[in-house]
């Protein structure tokens, strides 16, 4: 991440304002220090309004013309080399007032952007990088923890970050920014400075997904166990309570929902294989897909709900094959094929 800064320095140098007066009077050694952004250089030019009209081309010249002599010289500037008798200061002369750095005395020659990286194409991104880099450099000495022990943070995804900065940031550059973030996140949690923490929080996805702890499901206070199951295109939600084997699917009876006995049996296979058919009541909602898919989605959901009631049944249910998720879906059709894999019949001519 250090690379882009070099370019920025170049850019900053090229952005220098050509304010004529003070440099001419200053010693060449001091001129370099006075370099800066336009907003800053404006301050340095403070009191030299009278000497303004000279072109910047004589900046390097060390000998100023004689007409430029004046009594109001900046205190930082060295006295001119020639014809300045130091002994002839009148007694009534007062010290110049303190320079007010908050406001300009002079309008700058042209509007200069606040951000040094304004002309870089992605200034907000670069500002962020610079800020993070400076933080990293500042707190480099703090102790860190291993990557695995650092608190888990949900950083912006690339698309979200692009929205955040409003610039088309390439993937690679964002990755390098992430590296800085991760490095800062690895600072030992008790010792993280406030500014680092607040800065890191700017890069989190809204509603930090990892903040919520994954609470293991249990049977609720009314004795209901709720579980979901999927198969093919169907999704089933089962509420299982202790009861005597009454089943309701989408507000209908099991028989109305599944005409085939096979489907009914496969839907209740988890209860049947554990001989719990007359011990539980189930209230089921199922949607999507066809009859078989719905029946088998119910199977999975009932098995999961049953595990909440009786976790000890897991090996039995595993053996019955009802807690294994069948993740198969319909394979897509491909171009050039009649179906997913079928090829058109071969014809000689």
């Amino acid at each position: 991440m250090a690379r882009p800064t070099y370019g920025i320095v170049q850019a900053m140098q090229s952005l220098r304002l050509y304010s004529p007066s003070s440099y001419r009077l200053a010693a060449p050694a001091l001129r370099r220090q006075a370099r800066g952004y336009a907003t800053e250089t404006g301050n340095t030019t403070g009191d030299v309004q009278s000497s303004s009209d000279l072109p910047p081309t004589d900046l390097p010249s060390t000998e100023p013309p004689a007409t430029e002599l004046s009594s109001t010289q900046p205190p930082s500037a060295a006295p001119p080399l020639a014809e300045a008798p130091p002994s002839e200061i009148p007694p009534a002369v007062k010290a110049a007032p303190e320079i007010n750095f908050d406001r300009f005395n002079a309008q700058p020659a042209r509007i200069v952007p606040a951000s040094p990286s304004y002309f870089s194409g992605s200034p907000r991104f670069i500002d962020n990088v610079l800020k993070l880099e400076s933080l990293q450099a500042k707190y480099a000495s703090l102790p860190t923890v291993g990557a695995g022990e650092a608190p888990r943070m949900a950083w912006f995804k690339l698309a979200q970050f692009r929205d955040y900065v409003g610039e088309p940031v390439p993937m690679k550059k964002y990755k390098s920014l992430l590296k800085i973030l991760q490095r800062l996140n690895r600072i030992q949690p008790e010792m993280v400075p406030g500014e680092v923490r607040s800065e890191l929080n700017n890069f989190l996805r809204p509603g930090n997904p990892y903040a919520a702890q994954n609470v293991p499901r249990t049977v609720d206070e009314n004795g209901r166990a709720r579980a979901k199951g999927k198969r093919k295109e169907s999704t089933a939600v089962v509420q299982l309570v202790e009861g005597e084997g009454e089943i309701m699917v989408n507000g209908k009876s099991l028989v109305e929902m599944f005409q085939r006995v096979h489907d009914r049996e496969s839907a209740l296979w988890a209860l049947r294989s554990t001989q719990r058919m007359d011990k539980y009541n189930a209230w089921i909602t199922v949607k999507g897909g066809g009859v078989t898919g719905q029946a088998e989605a119910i199977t999975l959901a009932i098995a999961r709900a049953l595990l909440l009631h009786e976790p000890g049944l897991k090996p039995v249910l595993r053996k019955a094959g009802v807690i294994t998720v069948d993740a198969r879906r319909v394979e897509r059709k491909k171009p050039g094929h009649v179906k997913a894999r079928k090829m058109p019949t071969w014809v000689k001519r």
Partner: protein
Amino acid sequence: MASAWCWSCLSRLRPTPRAILPPPAVTPRITSAPFHSTAVQYANPTKKKSSLVATKYRQGQVLKRKKKAKTERARPPAVGERKALRKRIVLSNPNALEVEGMKDLSPETMVDSRLRGSVVGLPVPMLERLRAVQAFKPKQGWSIFRRPGTVLRRDTIEMGRLFEKISGDGDAPEKGKVIKKIITGMKGSGKTVHLLQAMTMGFLKNWVVITVPDARDLVSGDTAYSPVEGSKPTQYVQPNAVSALLTRTVEANRQVLSTLKVSQKHPGLSGLKPTSTLEDLAKLGFQDAAIAWTVFQALWTELNATAAAPGMENNFEARPPMLVAVDGLAHWMTETAYRDADFKPVHAHDLIFVQHFLSLLKSGQSLKNGGMLLYATSTSNNPSNYSLEVGLNQLAARQAGIAPTSEEYPQPEAYSNPNARVLDLFKPATGKESALELQTLGGLARDETRGFLEYFAHSGLLRESVNEEWVGEKWTLSGGGIIGELEKLGRHVRTAAQPVAQPVAAAN
């Protein structure tokens, strides 16, 4: 995930026939020269001649195919034979075991709550009469048992008690009352068999049983119809259907009708003598379909008479209560397949036969000598009918205690345009007496389920031990004891799983 193989038929477990002989080698070894190591190469087999034969040089190819020899086909079945086969009702199966200790339905057993959940047989002498009123339907599965029998479920025993009360053994306050019920329920919940049980009880109690076994027959446009002269709006009479109804009634109720004498004057029927019985009266109808409707009206007046007309008091006997059973009510709430003179469909309520039976539901004491009206809906052959649906919902709401003025009382949706005449049928009765009731048949209770499945086991159909757990499982699988589903589960013959022979690892 459930098991991939069919759990009930266990088709995967059936052992595949094992290959006994080793597969024939592709290149047989030469036995005559045992020291040769090279394989024999046979000449290529000769090619079969294709059907396309090039006959001669520079001649087109001719397609020559053998003509298929015509096989003599068996004659198609005679006209009506297929239908007869389809409608055939087989009531016994000599292969089934006889269930020992099975009781018959009788005036004593039909109210005995100790027998609840057991299967009682229909009395054998009653079967012919039940056939006559077409109480049995094909595909009800009577043919898998030795003799027909039905479960005594809670609803059956309650109905038996009603029969007892209305018949008035002793001086019960309900004597001569009319019970009007519409029977609904899920598919396979036993509505038609409930009617069958009611008919049997009616016969046992010497009631007059009048049935319409399939309401659809009257509206499907299969029987002749003609407008009634002078009726406005035009009503239609179906003479052949009425004639058939009279035939059914006489066949089934001969014992009762032959003892009752004519007690009213019927000026429209000239062939009637003062001494003739009601059987004779009804017979006039099926000898001549043209006067069938007049005869039916006369018979109806006779059966509902509470006293004889003046001058005919000699041989008047009190008329028995009546049972009217109709199956497939929804067909009577729509437009029929009949057309009027303007070729507009005729509504079922304009058929005078249908209207007669529907009007019994409305007015107060529609059966003067008491009795029961049982009108069952059907789910297997059922036109969708929004008006009827609303009407039944209103009926159910009233029964649940919701006042017709309340907001929760179900109303037809706006712009749904329900049939006013149909809704009118289900309006709350004004009189206190004999309001229309809705009886919804649900599933069997667990103990009834057990009794029913044990009956299958006793008949030799079921070869599993019927225990509590197994019954509970079947009860759940049948959607809470829906009896039609239980029958499917019970009759499902399953083969015992045969262990698949594991290939023995070859010993070294």
